[in-house]
């Protein structure tokens, strides 16, 4: 049996995960009590619950900040382990050192921060109100989030305590030999070009819906549907077109190599993530952030700003990736 890889990065990840899990667990009971008692409490008890809320709120903010900060750190620390894992050149190979855990939990790394930020956005609305109208909703949501938060922390704890320097296969042998999901020709046109055009068209439709949603709620559900459609199309476009074209390696489809070799593409990933997360944050705030008139106003104001940011972020991301493409094609 080989020894666990132990570096400064992995030890920081272990510490942060442990801290987040411990703090997160510590505050669940408080959050549960506030959410359960609030409606039945008289004025005096509500004052006591409010004090408990402030403690819970501060701890939850720290826990969520740790978990959010841990996401980029997770990928960065994993990438730094490449020299210690024989055969690994990028994250693809490193993930293969613990494939059952790393691959299956990859979606958590992108999905859970959407919920974490959603909670923080609700907290932002609550803070802008004079009477803490979302206190109960925030605590209830945290109680629901806490199992996911624990899983998130436990995944990191397990990954970084079990990674060992075993021989792995990396992206060149894993990706290029497979049959591609997009046919080389569609109606006589290059399949890659068709996919790229679909991706660009969908991005433009989504950005337009986002901007339009600022002034009309009729565009909100179309935006959500477009954001869902954009997810698989973006992944396909990144692996099948953007990566091989930008890296000038026609048979190389590894998105991790794109992110590593062209760091500007990280901006594309982040803006795309942010942009597609916005409709779901807005759904959360509409359902849980409109407890009274004041919260309603704050939510409405924030909603407009979020839709605008969503459209703008997508335009920035798209510009970045198209610039990288043009540079590589030039």
């Amino acid at each position, binding site marked *: 049996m080989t020894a666990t890889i132990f570096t400064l990065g992995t030890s920081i990840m272990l510490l942060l995960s442990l801290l987040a899990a411990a703090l997160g667990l510590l505050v669940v009971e408080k959050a549960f009590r506030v959410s359960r008692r609030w409606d039945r409490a008289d004025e005096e008890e509500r004052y006591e619950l*409010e*004090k408990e809320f*402030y403690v819970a709120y501060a701890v939850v903010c720290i826990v969520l900040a740790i978990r959010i900060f841990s996401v980029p750190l997770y990928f960065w620390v994993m990438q730094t382990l490449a020299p210690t894992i024989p055969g690994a050149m990028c994250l693809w190979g490193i993930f293969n050192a613990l494939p059952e855990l790393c691959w299956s939990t990859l979606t958590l790394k992108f999905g859970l921060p959407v919920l974490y930020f959603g909670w923080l956005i609700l907290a932002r609305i609550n803070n802008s*109100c*004079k*009477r803490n109208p979302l206190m109960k909703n925030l605590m209830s949501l945290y109680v629901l989030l806490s199992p996911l938060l624990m899983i998130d922390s436990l995944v990191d704890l397990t990954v970084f305590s079990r990674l060992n320097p075993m021989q792995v296969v990396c992206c060149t042998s894993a990706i290029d030999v497979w049959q591609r999901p997009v046919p080389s020709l569609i109606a006589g046109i290059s399949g890659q070009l068709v996919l790229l055009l679909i991706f660009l068209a969908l991005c433009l439709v989504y950005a337009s819906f986002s901007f339009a949603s600022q002034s009309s709620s009729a565009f909100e559900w179309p935006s959500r549907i477009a954001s869902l459609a954009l997810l698989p199309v973006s992944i396909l476009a990144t692996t099948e077109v953007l990566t091989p074209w930008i890296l000038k390696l026609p048979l190389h489809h590894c998105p991790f190599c794109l992110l590593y070799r062209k760091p500007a593409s990280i901006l594309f990933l982040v803006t795309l993530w942010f942009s597609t997360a916005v409709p779901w944050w807005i759904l959360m705030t509409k359902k849980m952030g409109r407890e009274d008139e004041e919260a309603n106003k704050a939510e409405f104001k924030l909603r407009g700003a979020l839709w605008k940011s969503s459209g703008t972020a997508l335009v920035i991301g798209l510009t970045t990736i198209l610039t990288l493409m043009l540079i590589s094609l030039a």
Partner: protein
Amino acid sequence: MYNKGEPNEVAALQDVSIEIKSGDFVLVKGPSGSGKSTLLSLVGLLCRPTKGRIFYDGEEVSSYSDAWQARMRREKTGFVFQQHNLLPQFPVWGNVSLPLTCRDVNGGEQKKKALNILERLGLGSRWSFRTAQLSVGEQQRVAIARALVTDPEIVLADEPTASVDEETSLSVLQIFLDLKKLGRTLIVVSHDPLMAEQANVAIELRSGLIKSLRRA
């Protein structure tokens, strides 16, 4: 009401209804335990009434969240405590600039504002001293400087001249009169007859009740 529902329950204030107008100089007096400091704490949003309401500019602020009340305290009020509550490990200017640290004022500007107010209060040469190196009267003026450095709309002072000599007492009164001229609202707990002469509203409390309320 303190310790509500317990054997040592105390009604610090009862049936107190006061309207304070912007620019008023309010003097609160009464014997020890009459509820003066509680009244000041309620008006300054340092505690909540167990019964009753507090209005500010027509808004009922006593039902606001703690966080919002803290924001109001930070932005609207300056508090001079009876015991000064200065931090001995900080220099004079550090004590005075403390309220500015919660107001997004940068370090240089904080020091500048602190030195300005210290100069106005005759403590310009003492800015770098530790508070323990100052006389009681000077410490009181530092406490006043700390309350005024944010240019608050309302200044609340609990016995500001109780532990100072006559000369310092006069200078404190002069500071308050200057503030009144600037339109600030002053609510002062004091037994000083000079303060009583200058205040346009005088409230006398006895066992948590208003014994007399005089508006000049």
